[in-house]
Structures are given as structure tokens and as C-alpha cells.
């Protein structure tokens, strides 16, 4: 299995998904060698073997179009801050992807395996190289496409990389029908090569008791509406701010919290300020672990106004914590959840209408919360892993 990030070194759903899937696969007696591009500390998992391609001198050049949402993790931010300027020049993300591929060739020749499973475009090249060396079947797993990340304005290089991986693959897994549609529409891939395996959630990780957060705000009768996600064009933080404006026109008693970081952070803060919402929208920064869980639980409603969302794990997380959700119809989760509010991401009025109703009606809030958290119970990594092993079996038959 080739990946790019792994918890706790993850910036988004990709790492969480790889972790959840790999763990459940190993419980299903699939032995996994997980390859990551670079040595990371704190990755001690007994259920799989982790190999680091150990690319030396990884450099990431944060200039212009090369900064890419999905890889602008805090890890790379850290690099940007600490690496001397001189070393950044000449090398960029694409070199890194290429080197990862070269290293993969060596690793692929040394390891024993039956199938190759590569997650997202950053590791597609590594997967292709491994296939070339071993002749084993290649599965590429699409957690997001360039069309999602850029809201329809793809970077040509990345698009080409994705396309190459998709066409080289023996089978493609997408995390939703939504993503499958994008792939068949934009990448010239035949529909019957693509299998949909919806993501799951580790329920046990969301049910432990935690002290209540934001009690002082709730005590004043304020309602809390939460956004969690990278602040990038894909996630629609600007729509969230616009919806907040509309809601506050009717009900000033609502506090909006934005948790996450990303290249639209300053733009989003500025938009909030321009709309005069400085004290109505709180920017909580990137939050993880129990802090994030507390945030979910303190919220009256979780909103995910993504412009294009392959899946949307945060929505499952909110539900697992008993918080009702409003998700955009342009998302993978909206396919699998029944007890969720759904709007088009651009329909500010529709979202505002729903938010206002949830914060004003206990009946609506409670019904969505209770049934939503039941609804999410069937979304497990075990079930996702089961579908993957089925695909492995078919490829090997």
C-alpha cells in the first residue's frame, strides 16, 4: 500500500482513511506493507509494517500554483518555516512525487505482496513503478481528484499524474459515487473499472466521555454552528461566512466557529471582517484529537458547505458525536446518510433556512442528532475493508 500521510501526521481525511482502512484490513487477515515517502516519528502501529521511502532532502517550494491544498499540511508548513530559503529552490512537490516513484521501484523489488494499493495521486507514480517491477495488479484508490481540490480549475501536471495512474490501474476505488462520476466524466475512464467503497469511521474513538467545552457561551443561550475543514476553495469556507451573514440577519444569537487552516485562511478572515462579522465568527485554527471532539459536541449544528467533496469524513465524525449535520449535496457523505440536512453549496438561502430552523427548534435538532448518530453506525471501516478484500480476491482470481 502506498500512501502519503498517516496519523498523527495528517492534514486531512486521507491519512485518517488510510489508517482506518489499513487497520480493518489487517483484522481481516490481510497483511499490509504501508509505504510512506518520508521517515516520520511516532508511527508505531502493530497491525502493519511501515516502510519509509526515506527520500532525503525533501524540499517543498511554497510558491504560486505549486502550493497545493491537500499537501499543505502542517508538516510541510513546518518545513517551509524551518528550511533555509536556499535549499527550497529547484525542488518542489513534483520532484518529490517523482523521487517517491523511484524509491518505490526499489522497495517493490524487495517486498512480497499480491496486490498494490495506492492512495491518491501523490502515490500513483509509486504504484505504477511497483507494478512495472512486479507485474502485480494495481489498485488506485481515489480519495479526491484535482477537480475537487481546485473547485473545477485543475492544475495540468496533477491532472496528468492522476490520469496516468487511473489508466495504469487494474481497478479503481473511489470513496463515493460523486467521485466515480467525476472520474468517468473527466478522466476518460470506463465506468465498470471503478468500484465505490465508502469510507467509514472508528466509532470507538468518538464515544469516550469528555468535559464540556464552550459552556460559558452556551450558558448565555447562544447557539453554535461549526465548520471543520481545510480552509481551501474545495471546502467552501467563503460560503460558510456568507451563510453566517444571512443567518445573523435573522437571529443574532448564533456563534459561528471555523476550525481549520489553509491557503484561504486570511481571505476567509478578511471576508468575515468585511461583512462585519468580526465578533460573530471565531477562527479556532487547526484542532485535532479530543479538542476537536469537544468542539463537535459543543456545536448545535455542523455545516459542511463543500464545493466538491469526495467523501467528507468530518460529517461522520460530527454525527458520531451526536451533532446534527448540514452537508452540501455535492458530497460523498450525502449519498450514504439519510438523517442529514442537505443543500446545494451555492444556495445560501437554503442553508440559512435550515440552520435557522435547527437552532430554533429543539425538535428538529434532537431528531436529526439522535437518528443521525444511529444512521452513522453502519458506516464502518470494517465494511469498507470487506469491500476492498472482495476487490483483491476478484483481481487475484
Amino acid at each position: 500500500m502506498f500512501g502519503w500521510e498517516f496519523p498523527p501526521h495528517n492534514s486531512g481525511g486521507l491519512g485518517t482513511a488510510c489508517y482506518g482502512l489499513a487497520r480493518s484490513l489487517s483484522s481481516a487477515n490481510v497483511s499490509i506493507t504501508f509505504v510512506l515517502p518520508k521517515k516520520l516519528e511516532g508511527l508505531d502501529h502493530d497491525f502493519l509494517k511501515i516502510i519509509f521511502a526515506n527520500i532525503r532532502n525533501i524540499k517543498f517550494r511554497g510558491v504560486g500554483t505549486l502550493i497545493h491544498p491537500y499537501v499543505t499540511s502542517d508538516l510541510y508548513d513546518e518545513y517551509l518555516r524551518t528550511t533555509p530559503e536556499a535549499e527550497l529552490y529547484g525542488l518542489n512537490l513534483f520532484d518529490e512525487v517523482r523521487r517517491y516513484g523511484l524509491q518505490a521501484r526499489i522497495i517493490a523489488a524487495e517486498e512480497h505482496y499480491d496486490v498494490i494499493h495506492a492512495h491518491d495521486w501523490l502515490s500513483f507514480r509509486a504504484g505504477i513503478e511497483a507494478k512495472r517491477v512486479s507485474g502485480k495488479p494495481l489498485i488506485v484508490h481515489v480519495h479526491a481528484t484535482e477537480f475537487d481540490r481546485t473547485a473545477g480549475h485543475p492544475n495540468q501536471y496533477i491532472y496528468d499524474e492522476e490520469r496516468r495512474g487511473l489508466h495504469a490501474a487494474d481497478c479503481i476505488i473511489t470513496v463515493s459515487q460523486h467521485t466515480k462520476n467525476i472520474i468517468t466524466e473527466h478522466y476518460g475512464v470506463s465506468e465498470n473499472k471503478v468500484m465505490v467503497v465508502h469510507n467509514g469511521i472508528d466509532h470507538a474513538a468518538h464515544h469516550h466521555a469528555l468535559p464540556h467545552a464552550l459552556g460559558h457561551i452556551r450558558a448565555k443561550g447562544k447557539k453554535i454552528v461549526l465548520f471543520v475543514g481545510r480552509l481551501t476553495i474545495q471546502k467552501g469556507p467563503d460560503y460558510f461566512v456568507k451563510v453566517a451573514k444571512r443567518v445573523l440577519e435573522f437571529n443574532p444569537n448564533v456563534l459561528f466557529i471555523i476550525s481549520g487552516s489553509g491557503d484561504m485562511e486570511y481571505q476567509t478572515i478578511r471576508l468575515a471582517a468585511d461583512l462585519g462579522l468580526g465578533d460573530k465568527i471565531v477562527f479556532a485554527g487547526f484542532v485535532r484529537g479530543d479538542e476537536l471532539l469537544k468542539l463537535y459536541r459543543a456545536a448545535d449544528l455542523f455545516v459542511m458547505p463543500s464545493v466538491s467533496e469526495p467523501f467528507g469524513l468530518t460529517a461522520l465524525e460530527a454525527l458520531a458525536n451526536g451533532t446534527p449535520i448540514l452537508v452540501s449535496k455535492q458530497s460523498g457523505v450525502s449519498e450514504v446518510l439519510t438523517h442529514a440536512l442537505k443543500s446545494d453549496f451555492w444556495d445560501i438561502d437554503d442553508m440559512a433556512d435550515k440552520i435557522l430552523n435547527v437552532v430554533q427548534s429543539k425538535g428538529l435538532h434532537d431528531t436529526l442528532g439522535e437518528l443521525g448518530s444511529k444512521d452513522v453506525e453502519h458506516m464502518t471501516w470494517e465494511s469498507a475493508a470487506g469491500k476492498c478484500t472482495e476487490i483483491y480476491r476478484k483481481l487475484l482470481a
Partner: protein
Amino acid sequence: MASICFYFQVHQPYRIKKYRIFDVGHDHHYFNDHSDRDINNEKILHKVATKCYLPMNKVLLELLEKHPEFKVAFSFSGVFLDQLEEFSPETLASFQKLVKTGRVEILDETYYHSLAFLYSKKEFVRQVELHRTKVKKLFGVTPSTFRNTELVYNNELAKFVEGMGYKAILAEGADHILGWRSPNFVYKAPNTTKIKTLLKNYRLSDDIAFRFSSRSWAEWPLTSEKFAHWVDAVNGNGNVVNLFMDYETFGEHQWEDTGIFDFMRALPREVLKHPDNDFVTPSEAAKRYPVVGEFDAHAFVSWADIERDLSAWLSNSMQHEAIGNLYALEGDVMASGDPAIIEDWSRLQTSDHFYYMCTKWFADGDVHKYFNPYDTPYEAFISYNNVLHDLRFRIEEAKTKKTTVKRPRATKKKSAEKKMTKSAAPVKKIVKKVSAKKVIVKKKK
């Protein structure tokens, strides 16, 4: 002797259009969707009239003309009759033609197909009286049998309706109350003396209403001969087989190509082949057959879902909140004296609104989803909730109007006015006058 007692429920709600919170205070028309969606009331009425009401009325008229023994009963909700007058007078005329044969009985129900009995006895009485007036006006008859919305029934209701002068009341022949006993006899509630309770034979009724076209059913295809045999089998251990169902069964739930019309066309002939069989209306059944035992319904029973309880309308907290908020407005609505406010508030009582908010079977895509014109129960709730906001807004507006108009002369008459609003009786009279007026206005349309 085995009698067949057919009763068909005919009802269409005024569905609420997509009504957003931003419409509150601006748009006071809640039921006028003109889109292609299934919340367009006029569209739905025309569709069902074409597929069901008109062709089935034709079948029934033929049968009534052909078989002097054939009889049926209808219960029309008031809001259905309103929509016929508004959208399809032709269909109303065809129902009137059936009633004119003298062998079609009409039952009384709440005008707005509501759950008022659970929330306000006063409102319940107002609606039953409105219904009786409407039936008298359109069909020239006065019903003596009562059926409550969705066969929602308990002992208290039976007693209450007895007090209103009805001779018979309908209920679901629920197994958990009947036990080993058969629904094919006439029963009574333990606390009543005169009123008789007729119980739906849900097996035979559902064979027609639900299973008729089901190919996975062992008895498929259901022929009229076969069905008549099942009825014959009741001879000797039952008096009356109550076949209660939605009229939309014919042509709408069971499409014409299932053969449902042919089945009905042939059924009376097959039933009457056995000399001991005949047809009765509910009031005839109650008159003819003695009470054999008590049907003791402490809790409410209904004909909905497998639970046969109130859960289709009142199981999640959205439904409870919505209906609670609605009835909390009763006093203010009536005090407003504004016919438009009263009418809209009344239409919001129709049980279908709460049915659309039901989440019980939502995930399974079951019948609730089939019968739900909204995308989700949540959409249904949100439009409803927003409409309630607007209604409150109008009530407040009406209050301020009243006080501003009356203020100049207030000093002298103040005490008299206070009395008026305090005592309940005069308010009731005003309401009655208003509703009578409303009826006349509608006739002119």
C-alpha cells in the same frame, strides 16, 4: 348471513409549498405550489381524479345500477371536498351522482382530517360540525356514523362521539385488542351504551388495498371468485365483513393495469352468488346486528403501519413539537376572528403534515417515503415550522390592528369587551358564524 360493508376514505391534504424562513412576514399563501413537484395540490388532485376518482366512480355507478343489493359508504374529508370545488367540480358531480342512488352512505369525520381529538375537544367539535354542514350542503344527507382521522380511536372517543349523537363509529380491528375474537361482529366500547363499534377486517381489506398486485403474495393473482369464497367462509362465524380502505386504492395505489377495476366490477356478482351474502352500509350494519362483546381500547389505535398506533404522526420530537406549537395557537387564532387565519390554522391540522415528518421508516424507503411529497421529513418540518412563524406573525398583526382600531372608543366599552374575550361561549358563537359564512362564500365560487 355474511354482509360486506365497504367504506372508502377519500382525502387529499392541502400540502405546504417550499416555504422558507425568509418568506415569513411576506408571503401568507402556504398551499399554492405551482411547480411540477408533488406538493402542487391542484396537479395531484387532477392526477388522482383521472386515475382513480372518475374511473372508479364510473365502475361503482354501473354496479349500483346493475345490482340493487350493492351498497358502499364514503368518508370525504372537508379539505378534499374544498379542493374538488376549487379544482374539479366534475369529480364532485360524479360523487354526488353516486350518493343520489340512495345506496351510498356518507360518514362524518373532522373537516380538516385532523388529530384534533387528541389536543382540543372544542376544536374537534367545531370541525365535526363544519363537516356535517358541508356534507348536508353538497350531498343533502346527514351522516349518523362517525370515523375519525386514520381510524384513530379509543374508548374515550367512542363515548364522546356517542354524546354527539352518532349511532356507529369505525375502528381498526387490531389484534392486540381483539385477541382471539373476530372482527366480523359488531362490538361496543365498555363505557358506551348506544353507539356501536364496527371493526375493520384488516386481512381481507389489505388483500385488496395492499396485496392485490403483489406477485410475491401466495394468493396472487386475486380473483373476485377467490375473494368471494373467503367472504363466504365467514358465514356461520361472523355477521359483517368490514372492508375499509383508501379510495385511492383503485387506480392510484393499485394501477388500472393490475386489473383492480375488473376485480371490483366482478366482485358483487360473485359475492351475491351465495344467497346468504349481501351488502350493507355502516349504519345498516350497526342497526341490523347486535353487539356481541366489548372492544376495549384504552390506548389509541389506528389503521396506520404495522404498529396500528399514533407513531406515524407522533413518534419523533419534530412531530410533537410541531403539533404542540400548532395547538398552542388555538386561543389566539380564534380570538383573532380573522377567517383567513382560522382557515390556514385549520388546514395546518391535517394529519398528513405530521405524517410527512415521520422518520420511522425513512431509511428503509418504505411506504412513508412513497407517500411523502417532500425530499425528507426534515424538509417537511422546516416548511411547516416556517409557516407557523408566519401564522404567529399574522396573529400578532391582527391583534395590533384590533387594538388600534378599537382604542378611540375604548374608554366606555372596555369592561364589556373584556367580558367578551374572557368567556368562552361567545367566542364559539363567533366561530360558528364565521364558518357558516365561509361555506356560503365557497358556494359562490
